[in-house]
């Protein structure tokens, strides 16, 4: 990879009391790369993500974003620069879809007309229905539509980096598949650098360029799906084999040439 990494973790640690949530992690995410972080609950993957935009402060090590140490960047400014998609959307229930999407540009002091234009652009980009959704409250939307709004909101201030915390985890399989695919295309089209947390290895394999595997706060392995398949770590191998094993079981259960 020729260019300098968009995000770089160097020997980063974070403890909550006696628990080492992130334990001496070093990881580079190249510009334009789509990285999936996989691991079980409590593996430290969410903590790792939040350290990048200082929603959580690291105890030790260095994190740089586009070459700059995050400790030298004012946290509020840092967060406005980085898109963040929350697990269950995290939409503000008292604000309309448009106001939710436009919130970060508004905080940055963009003029109202410019915000309105940007909101319409994002509604179209995320394939939402402008007439039906723009001025509604989030509660009027389906789960998938809400998550599209969540992604639109994260994109509103034109960030180059997107952090996504299990963005499609709570959605039904069809919506999830479609949304994942749509976002992958958007990632390439907009030239984003994306770090996405997921507990679904299949999703990770299908969407990401590279996968990082976390366990007990440690970075167990990182690499392309192919590289990881050749890992000599039992847990990593087990993890990577899961999708294939499932397909074999599915093939045995479903009639050949059928819906599957």
């Amino acid at each position, binding site marked *: 990879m020729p260019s300098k990494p968009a995000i770089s973790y160097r020997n980063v640690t974070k403890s909550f009391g006696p628990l080492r949530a992130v334990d001496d992690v070093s990881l580079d995410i190249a510009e334009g790369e789509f990285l999936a972080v996989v691991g079980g609950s409590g593996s430290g993957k969410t903590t790792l993500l939040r350290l990048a935009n200082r929603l959580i402060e690291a105890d030790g090590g260095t994190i740089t974003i586009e070459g700059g140490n995050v400790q030298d960047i004012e946290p509020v400014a840092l967060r406005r620069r980085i898109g963040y998609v929350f697990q269950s959307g*995290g939409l*503000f229930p*008292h604000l309309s879809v448009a106001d939710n999407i436009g919130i*970060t540009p508004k905080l940055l002091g963009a003029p109202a007309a410019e915000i309105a234009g940007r909101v319409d652009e994002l509604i179209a980009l995320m394939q939402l229905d402008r007439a039906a959704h723009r001025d509604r409250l989030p509660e009027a939307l389906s789960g998938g539509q809400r998550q599209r709004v969540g992604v639109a909101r994260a994109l509103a201030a034109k960030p180059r980096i997107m952090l996504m915390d299990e963005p499609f985890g709570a959605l039904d399989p069809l919506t999830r598949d479609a949304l994942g695919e749509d976002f992958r295309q958007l990632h390439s089209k907009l030239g984003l650098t994306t770090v996405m947390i997921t507990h679904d290895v299949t999703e990770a394999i299908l969407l990401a360029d590279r996968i990082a595997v976390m366990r007990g706060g440690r970075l167990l392995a990182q690499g392309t799906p192919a590289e990881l398949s050749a890992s000599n770590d039992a847990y990593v191998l087990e993890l990577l084999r899961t999708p294939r094993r499932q397909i074999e079981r599915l093939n045995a259960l479903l009639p050949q040439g059928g819906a599957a």
Partner: protein
Amino acid sequence: MSLFDDPRWGEALSHLPDYLGNHVRVSLAALTLGLVVSLPLAILTRNRPAPRAVLLALASIVQTVPGLALLALFYPLLLFVASVTLAWFGVSFSAFGFLPAMLALALYSMLPVLRNGITGLNGIDPALIEAAKGVGMTARQSLVMVELPLALPVIMAGIRTAAVWVIGTATLSTPIGQTSLGNYIFAGLQTQNWVFVLFGCVASALLALAVDQLLGLIESGLRQRGRLSTALGATGIAALVVATLVPTMGRSSAGYVVGAKTFAEQYVLSALLRDRLQAAGLQATARSGLGSSVIFGALKAGDIDLYVDYSGTLWANQLHRTDIKPRAELVTELKTALAKDNITLLGELGFENAYALVMPKKRADALGIHTIADLAAHSSTMSIAGDYEFFSRPEWAALQKAYGLQFSAQRQMQPDFMYAAVASGEVDVIAGYTSDGLIAKYNLVALDDPKQAIPPYDAILLLAPKRAGDERLKAALSPLLGKIDITTMREANLRASGNDANSSPDAVAKWLWGKVGGR
């Protein structure tokens, strides 16, 4: 005459703009102040458990103090503060009426706002606060744009509770000089004018109900994010405030304020004084129902201009004298003493309203009791009732000491109920008032005081320091001096104790003036 064409309804209605306007004004000011203080406190302590617990405990303690007591406490407190600011900075303020009422009510309103504010702010989904941070909000932006709007329905519910409490409790601010719908209730209770009592209760209940419903509309609008019901509720509240405040706003507060304590005779006399001033072309209003500890201070501070007090009361309570002097001598000495405070003792009205121990005449004759000394032998098997202040007054201590009185039971009663209570045998003796017409009506007798333990109680007319040189005022009042004898006052009081149209203080005052010199 049926209850509904009683002319006292009309009289009650004529006071409504004044009473309701003042009620709304003091309630609104108190709520606003309470809100301005407690909301920031709720915000500041929402993430700090220790100060939050202390704050909520303090607010709860305030809530356990009865409303009447809390209001009454603020008067001496402010008097003290006013004297301090006068001594240190040379500025003073009125500790009477609006200010103490507003402060006490504001304190009263704080608990529900604090509690709901903290509950509302702490009840927000932590994921949303995280999201606020994540999109790049500062702590302040998160508070203003996310946390407060989300907590607003809960805060609004607290404001609603506070509003109902304040409107209800404001009826108790009459004794510290704040006009309110409580004026109906206090005056009605004292003069047995049930039309007034009913009117006051219904009016304050309706006001509380209307405000509760309108604020409820705003609350449900905020909860369901329905702009229409929020707007309707807010418009309703605004219309209510404007409609009640505007009629009293243009009214000038200039003119003479005649004070009156909380019993029927005082209501009648203050109405009489007000009528006399108006007849002389002076602007005057009566401010009645003032606590007897408040009224002298209010005169001294110039919050009221004149009122009628009783020589023995001031002798014991203001000069702290325990010796007894003959009637005329006591008034002369009192006049000199009051002059030091620049208070003018204009003169005696002519009658005396002394405390006296009163019992049914039949029973007194049967037991051979004619004097308090005779009563002492029987007192250990008898019960006594007095008004709310009698048993803590120095006169009662003097009586007990002089005659060795030891009653089996002591009860406090609404003055107008005492006479019926003693006549029916509910209690054996009461500490009544010699000018009360009910003594004759119930065939009671006032026992002699051979040891002169009770000082004389000449009704005297007092003028505030700022009216010391007001010759027009003095000229308007002088026709009353020495003109009201005890028989006339008793009859006036008896009329005032009735429960019909002729028994209102205004009607009795007119009758009284006709009797003592008016045409």
